């Protein structure tokens, strides 16, 4: 092999492997480090002592974690469901070849450009009974109007849902709209010939075809939901009391505010562990689809 040829066969490897190794390695190393940290007695700084399962049992016993984890299920489910529903509705409506599509698209997408801190702060202003919508209604004369979810212990987490749905529905809409547009025109024509009305067409033909897109939206929304931190801190500060706290807030609180690195890491590991509930089925689903595709081919 000439020098050039040798160089030509080595160069790709020099270029491929570093970015892949770095991005792969960073995920593995950082996750492993967090898991290791959760088994130590680290407080202010990482420390090399062994704490067995102590941190896990301590975190599970705190009201912070119990409330946060419950909230994660409530918030996660509501957020994903409502965002998906809103995104789907908006996508279907815009798909009807209406005028001014560009404007609507811009309006529904702009929240993605805004940071979570700003979203939380602004919605915090709006939903605050003393300075926001309730006050506006009172000033306008509707004195019995009440919207006090923000300060209601049982309803505060739903204000986070509202803000989250507002922020993420545009993304769901974008993905779903693009999916709707990519449905084969022949399929639609065939349905039309068969005499199916618009609703039937959507339910029987379109949605099943874009099934994979639903899954993709679901995964992205879940990732939003699990990582929610800035939004809830800016909107409710985790309150009233501890009522709207979420696992990421607990992780940050313990790791950095209370200088309990190990306990915070344990909470983080438990949070990521619960991801497995979603990712493993998804992985299996994709494997199953792949096998089906291969069987058909």
């Amino acid at each position, binding site marked *: 092999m000439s020098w050039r040829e040798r160089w030509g066969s080595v*160069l*790709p490897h020099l*270029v*491929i492997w570093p*970015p*892949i190794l*770095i*991005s*792969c390695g*960073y*995920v*593995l190393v*950082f*996750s492993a*480090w967090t898991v290791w940290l959760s088994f130590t007695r680290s407080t202010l700084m990482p420390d090399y002592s062994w704490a067995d399962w102590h941190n896990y049992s301590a975190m599970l016993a705190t009201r912070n974690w119990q409330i946060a984890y419950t909230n994660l299920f409530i918030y996660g489910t509501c957020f994903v469901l409502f965002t998906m529903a*809103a995104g789907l509705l*908006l996508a279907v*409506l815009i798909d009807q070849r*209406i005028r001014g599509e*560009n404007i609507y*698209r811009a*309006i*529904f*997408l*702009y*929240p993605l*450009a*805004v*940071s*979570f*801190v700003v*979203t939380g*702060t*602004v919605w915090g*202003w*709006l939903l605050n009974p003393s*300075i*926001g*919508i309730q006050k*506006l209604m009172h*000033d306008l004369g509707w004195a019995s109007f009440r919207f006090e979810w923000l300060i209601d212990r049982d309803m505060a987490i739903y204000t986070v849902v509202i803000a989250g749905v*507002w922020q993420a529905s545009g993304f769901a809409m*974008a993905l779903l709209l*693009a999916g709707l*547009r*990519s449905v084969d025109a022949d399929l639609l024509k065939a349905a039309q010939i068969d005499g199916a009305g618009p609703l039937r067409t959507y339910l029987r033909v379109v949605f099943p075809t874009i099934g*994979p*897109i639903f899954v993709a939206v679901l*995964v992205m929304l879940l990732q939003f939901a*699990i*990582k929610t*931190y800035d939004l809830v801190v800016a909107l409710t500060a985790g309150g009233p009391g501890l009522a709207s706290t979420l696992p990421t807030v607990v*992780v940050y609180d313990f*790791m*950095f505010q209370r200088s309990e690195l190990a306990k*915070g890491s344990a909470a*983080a590991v438990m*949070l990521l562990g619960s*991801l497995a509930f979603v*990712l493993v089925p998804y992985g299996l689903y994709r494997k199953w689809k792949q096998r089906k595709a291969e069987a058909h081919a």
Partner: protein
Amino acid sequence: MPSRIALSRLAIHATLIAFAAFWLVPLLVVALNALRSTEDIAHAGVIGLPHELMWSNFRETWSSYCISQHCDGIQPYFWNSMRMVIPATIVSTLLGALNGYSLSLWRFRGDNVVFGIITLGVFLPEQIRLVPWVIVLRDLGLFNTISGLVMIHIVQGLSFTTLFCRNYYVSIPQDLLKAARIDGAGFFRIFWRIVLPLSPPILIVTVIWQFTGIWNEYLYGVTFTAGEQQPVTAALIALSARLSDAPQYGEQSAAVLLAAAPTLLVYLFGGRYFLRGLTAGAVK
């Protein structure tokens, strides 16, 4: 007598307008508040019309607001963010394309596992990565530099960009590549001649996503930079997190608009391409 079609179209428009109105409320409130004085907002609530247009809020926030010793407004921090976000976005996009290409078209053993691991990075909360990054940057000697922060954003962004690009590239027909290989084209030739020209839709998605994500990021920006080098998100927090003063609603709103302007513009002009590229991105 209006036909059924006309009625249903009316219903569609009405629903869309109602949603659009709800969606626009926060933006309107912030825009109106940016033009009101803080005293007015403190007295009359956060939802209201300006009595007089306080353009001075914008001017002050941009160039004369005092953050620690420097009364230059948020302007210097704005440019810091630009200096950090643009390189990070470009590099993470390019590397993501490269990764996506390697993982989807230039197969090797275990590439699905590697892809899975990289994608998992998307789910890691930023809090747990903070201390490890400090250690890494310390060992690389990049602590407290903008380059260090750029590096962090590149590596973290690679999870998203690889995800998007790889899923997009799997749809490139294998025949195209086979033909090129038969013609004697190597790794780079194929990337340059075939893959990249097909990439603009997904690259635009990646650029928009990365630009927005890095621009709006706060935790790392504050921890890994110092003083004058901090990004604009730090300046925003400095404006709002004040223990010894009452909230300055007017200036805060103006600052929020100014800081969000780049990303808003990106979505305004790039929204159409964002839409187009997304479908090919995360499907399958």
